[in-house]
């Protein structure tokens, strides 16, 4: 997607009387004027206008100027959720970033992600040949040994490298439910982090590889815990011509089904007060291209219903929840380029958790878990972050 394809939407946002300014998570904590949504769109409008009416300098001049500004957002979609016209500003920014990258003006941090992704097939640059090295090998081996299972587990980069206990907990849940699942050993980054940074070609390479690898496995269902991977496989892959054979379900949906069918029983009791943090890729999804599809496939209730099934768990809703949830700042672009803002954005979510009276933040995203855990450590807070699979696994 390029800015020409978003011209109408960009123009509207550029001329908006700032109706989403105060809700934008990045801008609220950063405060600089250039991080305001209308200013970012105005920069793109200027480029579009000069493409239509070329003057004495090429529009690329303004692309270079806009480069830094376009990355001053979490892409979390608060602006869209609050917008009276549901304008998909995230799509405008991704289009702008794509143009920036293709004209050679990618910021160094973005170039770094490109190189790491090309070299190691993940945005973090962790060694590809060590992708599953942090996962308990006895658990992993069982998944590797299975032939022709109908259910697959997609691990995802953040879980594989930094949060292996999420996979191990999911594995325990499947074992307890007598579901024999396999994994995609050739899995690479889903490509969505790269796509969102404007690294379209890198993203498309990853998508093509993964689509083939998944389809070769012959799964009927692929369980995905990472919301970015879920969104990529469900929506972006088909959009770019890579239909995925198995049905893609989020881990919370899969666990909910196991509970409803009675194949999974939760035996022991916990004693925790938990608030669920909605990750934006699940809670206010924006489709890859067509803004009219906004909000069609949000996953709000399955995570809550799974949590409510846990004996002894008391759940308190955050003030901003579902499609109005605040993003946590765990997006790779913001973490790399504006770590101080990412921390402040995360702190806002944690403040809501404290106000809600919870002692644990339940998350449905490994990126949220990693980022909020770091924010807790950084600010020396007495809170725990746990993924839904981990909370469920504690009761088995």
């Amino acid at each position: 997607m390029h800015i020409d394809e978003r011209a109408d939407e960009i123009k509207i946002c550029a001329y908006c009387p700032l109706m989403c300014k105060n809700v934008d998570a990045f801008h609220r904590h950063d405060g600089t004027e250039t991080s305001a949504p209308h200013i970012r769109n105005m920069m793109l409008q200027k480029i579009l206008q000069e493409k239509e009416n070329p003057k004495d300098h090429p529009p690329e001049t303004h692309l270079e100027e806009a480069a830094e500004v376009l990355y001053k957002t979490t892409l979390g979609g608060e602006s869209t959720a609050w917008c009276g016209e549901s304008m998909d500003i995230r799509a405008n920014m991704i289009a702008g970033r794509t143009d920036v990258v293709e004209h050679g003006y990618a910021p160094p941090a973005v170039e770094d992600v490109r190189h790491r992704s090309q070299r190691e097939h993940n945005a973090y640059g962790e060694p590809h040949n060590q992708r599953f090295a942090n996962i308990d090998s006895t658990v992993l081996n069982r998944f590797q040994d299975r032939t022709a299972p109908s259910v697959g587990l997609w691990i995802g980069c953040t879980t594989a490298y930094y949060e292996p206990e999420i996979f191990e907990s999911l594995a325990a849940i499947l074992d307890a439910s007598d579901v024999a699942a396999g994994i995609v050993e050739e899995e690479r980054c889903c490509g969505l982090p790269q796509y969102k940074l404007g690294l379209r070609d890198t993203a498309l390479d990853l998508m093509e590889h993964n689509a083939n690898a998944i389809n070769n496995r012959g799964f009927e269902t692929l369980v995905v815990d990472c919301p970015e991977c879920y969104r990529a496989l469900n929506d972006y892959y088909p959009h770019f011509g890579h239909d995925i054979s198995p049905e893609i379900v989020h881990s919370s949906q899969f666990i909910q089904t196991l509970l409803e069918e009675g194949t999974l029983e939760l035996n022991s009791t916990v004693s925790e007060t938990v608030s669920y943090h909605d990750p934006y890729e699940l809670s206010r999804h924006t489709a890859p291209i067509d803004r009219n599809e906004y909000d069609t496939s949000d996953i709000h209730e399955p995570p809550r219903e799974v949590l409510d099934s846990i004996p002894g768990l008391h759940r308190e809703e955050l003030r901003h929840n579902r499609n109005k949830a605040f993003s946590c700042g765990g997006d790779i672009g913001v973490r790399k380029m504006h770590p101080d803002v990412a921390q402040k954005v995360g702190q806002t979510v944690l403040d809501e958790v404290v106000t809600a009276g919870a002692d644990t933040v339940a998350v449905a995203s490994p990126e949220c878990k990693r980022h909020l855990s770091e924010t807790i450590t950084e600010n020396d807070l007495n809170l725990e972050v746990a993924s839904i699979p981990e909370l469920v696994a504690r009761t088995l």
Partner: protein
Amino acid sequence: MSRISQSLLYEELRSIVGEENVVESEQEQVAHSMNCNWYTRQLWMDDEAIPVPAVGVYPHTTEHVSQIVAFAHREGIPVTPFGMGSSGMGGNVPEYGGILVDLKRMKDIVDVNEESLTATVQPGIGNWEYEDYLNERGFTSGHLPASHYSATVGGMLALRSAGRLSTAYGKIEDMILGMEVVLPTGEVVKTKPVPAHAAGPDLDQLFVGSEGAFGIITEATLKIHHFPDERRFRAILFPDFESGYTAMRKIVQKGLTPALARLYNEEETARTFKETWGVEKEGAYVILSWDGPEPVVDAKERSALEICTAEGGEDMGADRGREWWENKYADYYPNEDSVQNYQALRGGHSDGMAGTVTTSVPYDKAEEAYQAMETAFEEKFGDEYTAWIHAHFSHWYNSGTMFYSRWHIRDIPADTDMLKLYNEVWSTLVPISLEYDGVVDHHHGTGRLLGRFLRKQDEGSHDVLANIKESIDPKNIMNPGVMGLGGH
């Protein structure tokens, strides 16, 4: 401009607020020239020169602001205070360059006093964030303007803002209890947040509405309210504008204090019914609401409905009123059609422009004033262009009301001088308000667009303002050019 070099300017400011709070990028300078008025945005789009600050600075504390302003005063450098940039009158455009003081990093809620019902905040907090914080704790500011998502509390104080519920809760000048202000010389003034006093003039009211010309507001203590137990809406359709107007006046003057009180003229009523509900209706539409304990709301609503019935009003029920409330910001989001109004390009690139005159007038002059404004606009612009004007009356007082006239001009020939045409509209409409004992503006401020009319508003008052300005800002560094007080 000052005698000091750009590099020394940066160095001095960095020493005050730290390197991370001095922004030097060209994009940031451009962004700080923008606001909800279209002019600088269009100049920039057309690659023409725009007024930009020499430097943008983000203070965190009153001490920072004081040191910045003291430095600017010493060196004679213009200072423009900046909140969220939603001014529609160009008041925060750094016309003379200098230092732009962006207050968005001063956004703490310092205190909420649940017993005295006050909140003390730094100026840079956004109104949405502030209200959200209060709501979470069971309170409300009662201040919900159209710029709810795009204005800071400090900015709203500086422009004497009005919210949708002002008929019950008052404008922001009715909510202020105490302030801290950094004067143009850098000294700090702090008034006590008492409910009332007779110990000299109320200094808060000198700074509220002063548009940054008299100093920078660095802290404010405002009234807050318990979030109402009951918030009830009612929609009424009157046979014509006059009967609706009479009913509204009587409701307010009888002390039935609706929170929301909006009367639409016939054109806007017909449009609203057609566009919103697909129904052809004639008459004048009123939306009312009451906040408070249920028995109080019951009693006020009952009495108000009796007045409405007596004036021929047809009760349209609660749902249509509530529906308006739930979509109260909807008209402000541009879409593919309305974006033309925001895109009033210079040099004939676009064919549309629009604007809003807000004025307050005594009851005995309001209808006449509005009719005169409508007639003058149509006579002056209706033949040459596609031009229309419509109004609603949405802030009601014991002695008078406010009308909000939204004007539109379309089909503008390509060779038109858009700025000249734009200014002609204001020069046509604002003097009519003054002629009928109204004011230049009710709740948007005057900024750089309307300051030129202020001298004609009140007899002798503009000289008083000028004298105060000269006394407290002898070098004229604080936001020079607003309120018609003269440039730097």
